[in-house]
């Protein structure tokens, strides 16, 4: 296969910019696509070519397979990188591109399809010897059957509506005597909410940590893993902070998780970059959750500790080249943390915030990387995901990384819209976070919005600055008003005019 010459990035925001940076580095020409509100988005200016998709919403634009395939054809792109989200895990998109003779920078459609269906993926993983959360193999309706299963699995168990999702239709049962009533209630709820009463029983993990393994596979049968990422700092199942390594994972656990992730990827004939997500309990037992068959938002933390360019590796694999390194050659050094910058207000229940970014000053210095999809005076559109950028910090070790992150956030200014920067600053002050002692419930259990403002110097300086500004403004006004009252033009303006006249006289 010849090397790639031109790639269309079927995405927007920071990830479109991130992908294009590596493409440029490799001498691959870049093509952006954009919705109508995204004409002003930075990925459009950044690309060599830019094609409009027409329409506004995601459904009319970045989710339209027909429009994207046509854009790739028109631009003469020989590859499409899907980024994350949108169509990145859609097998039909990969198939449509392949029919059009365009390389999809991602796994084969069959691997995406296999991992895309939770039940099928679970069955496949069981067959491949990958450890999954113990649970029923099918829907359960009989309370006796549920009781037998729960006993075999061990309490607490979780009752889960088969058609549910996003935390809905789930119930934790801690002892046998609560089981029958809970089963009835869950079935009834599921019937009402999803028109499907099927319920599964599975083991409930009390203090879960979300830990994932980055894998990378080529078309020649090689598959390696690049270590773990700790993603337990989440809110409403949305990751907020990720790091690598995990402060919880031991070398033995890493090795076992890595081997199991590779096993999972190979079981579906995986190629390219992928992530195998695990849930781990307090005793360091870990279970397969799902596989994300794409590049992850949080891939930079793995890049910073391995020194690899994951997008570069994706392009190499997509062009049919073998992986340039073996498992033994994967080196890991130092620590890295990613802080997702969302347009949301942590002081008001993380309500999304839109509007114009009036001011933007990103931090700099050693170990500071800012993957951004915004610029000063950029109008954040209401139609898409609220992720603005990612601040990724690396350091010698975890303590050094946290110290650098604290410093970086002191320099970071985004104004005009609300962001979760104050949340990150709060997090970086928490002793339990510093100690690595947290699970996926951490934000829900510990975050208090009234603890956001912290530094006593800030109100003191703000009072001085605001009073001074107000005082000077009032004096400026008074001067003009007094002058106007006397029937005189303002002396400031008068002086300015005299100088202008004098300059004109000299010219």
């Amino acid at each position, binding site marked *: 296969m010849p090397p790639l010459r031109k790639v269309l990035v079927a995405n927007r925001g920071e990830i479109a910019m991130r992908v294009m940076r590596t493409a440029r580095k490799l001498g691959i020409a870049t093509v952006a696509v954009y919705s109508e509100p995204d004409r002003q988005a930075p990925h459009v200016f950044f690309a060599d070519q830019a094609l409009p998709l027409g329409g506004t919403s995601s459904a009319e634009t970045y989710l339209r397979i027909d429009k994207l395939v046509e854009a790739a054809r028109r631009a003469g792109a020989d590859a499409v990188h899907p980024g994350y989200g949108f169509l990145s895990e859609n097998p039909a998109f990969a198939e449509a591109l392949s029919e059009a003779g365009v390389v999809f920078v991602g796994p084969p459609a069959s691997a995406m399809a296999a991992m895309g269906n939770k039940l099928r993926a679970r069955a496949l993983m069981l067959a491949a010897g990958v450890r999954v959360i113990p649970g029923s193999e099918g829907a359960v309706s009989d309370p006796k059957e549920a009781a037998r299963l729960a006993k075999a699995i061990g309490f607490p168990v979780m009752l889960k509506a088969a058609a549910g999702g996003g935390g809905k239709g789930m119930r934790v049962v801690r002892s046998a005597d609560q089981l029958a009533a809970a089963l009835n209630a869950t079935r009834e709820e599921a019937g009402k909410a999803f028109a499907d009463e099927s319920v599964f029983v599975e083991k409930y993990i009390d203090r879960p940590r979300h830990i994932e393994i980055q894998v990378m596979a080529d078309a020649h049968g090689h598959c390696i893993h690049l270590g773990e990422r700790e993603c337990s700092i989440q809110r409403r199942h949305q990751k907020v902070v990720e790091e690598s390594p995990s402060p919880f994972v031991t070398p033995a656990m890493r090795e076992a998780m890595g081997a199991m992730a590779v096993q999972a990827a190979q079981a579906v004939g995986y190629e390219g970059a992928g992530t195998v997500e695990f849930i781990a309990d307090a005793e360091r037992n870990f279970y397969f959750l799902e596989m994300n068959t794409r590049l992850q938002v949080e891939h930079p933390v793995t890049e910073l500790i391995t020194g690899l360019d994951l997008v570069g590796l994706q392009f190499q694999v997509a062009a049919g080249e073998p992986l340039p390194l073996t498992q033994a050659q994967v080196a890991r050094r130092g620590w890295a943390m990613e802080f997702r910058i969302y347009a949301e207000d942590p002081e008001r229940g993380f309500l999304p915030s839109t509007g114009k970014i009036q001011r933007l000053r990103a931090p700099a210095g050693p170990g500071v990387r800012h993957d951004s999809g915004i610029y000063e005076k950029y109008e954040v559109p*209401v139609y898409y995901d609220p992720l603005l950028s990612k601040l990724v910090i690396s350091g010698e070790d975890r303590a050094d990384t946290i110290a650098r992150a604290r410093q970086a956030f002191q320099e970071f200014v985004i104004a005009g819209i609300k962001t979760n920067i104050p949340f990150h600053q709060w997090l970086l002050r928490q002793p339990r976070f510093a100690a690595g002692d947290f699970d996926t419930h951490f934000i829900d259990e510990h975050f208090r919005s009234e603890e956001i403002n912290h530094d006593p110097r800030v109100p003191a300086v703000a009072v001085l600055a605001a009073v001074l500004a107000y005082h000077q403004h009032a004096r400026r006004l008074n001067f003009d008003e007094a002058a106007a009252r006397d029937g005189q033009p303002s002396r400031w303006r008068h002086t300015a005019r005299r100088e202008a006249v004098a300059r004109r006289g000299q010219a």
Partner: protein
Amino acid sequence: MSGARYLVRLGAEGETKEVSVEARGARWAITVGEAEHLVEQIVLEKDELLSLIVGDHSYLVDLIETDWESGRFVVGAIGEQIALSVRDELEAVAEQVTAAARQSGIFELRAPMPGIVVRALAAAGERVARGQGLVILEAMKMQNELASELDGRLRELLVEPGQLVETGAVLARVVQEAE
């Protein structure tokens, strides 16, 4: 205290401080309560970005929001942002009087951001409690429940499901009712 006098309030319901300002040579003498600070200022961007040297401590200060009419500011320094309001003494007294007169007992639910109305959670005429959700508004793929800030009766519901609303649009009105 000498010089021009102001009242400064931190946050929405924070404490009020008395502050006076006067020019002293090339610097400003600013007295907050009992403490006097000598402040040297240069303007890096007019009404936006200042460098302050307070005593000999140096601060880069963002004036993020400036409403000269109402004296409301949002100020950023050392990585944090804080809201405050500044009034001169006379204005402050006059405002207290009008604020009392304006105690109308009506709460207007306004859209905090542009979005699409998903559904109403209460019907016009219904009794509603403070904190009770009135409307679900979708913005940026997230559904947000907007709640009443008064105990009372929902007098008007001004939007319908599917309607696109701009920031500040009035969605509903609640009238206070005695128990």
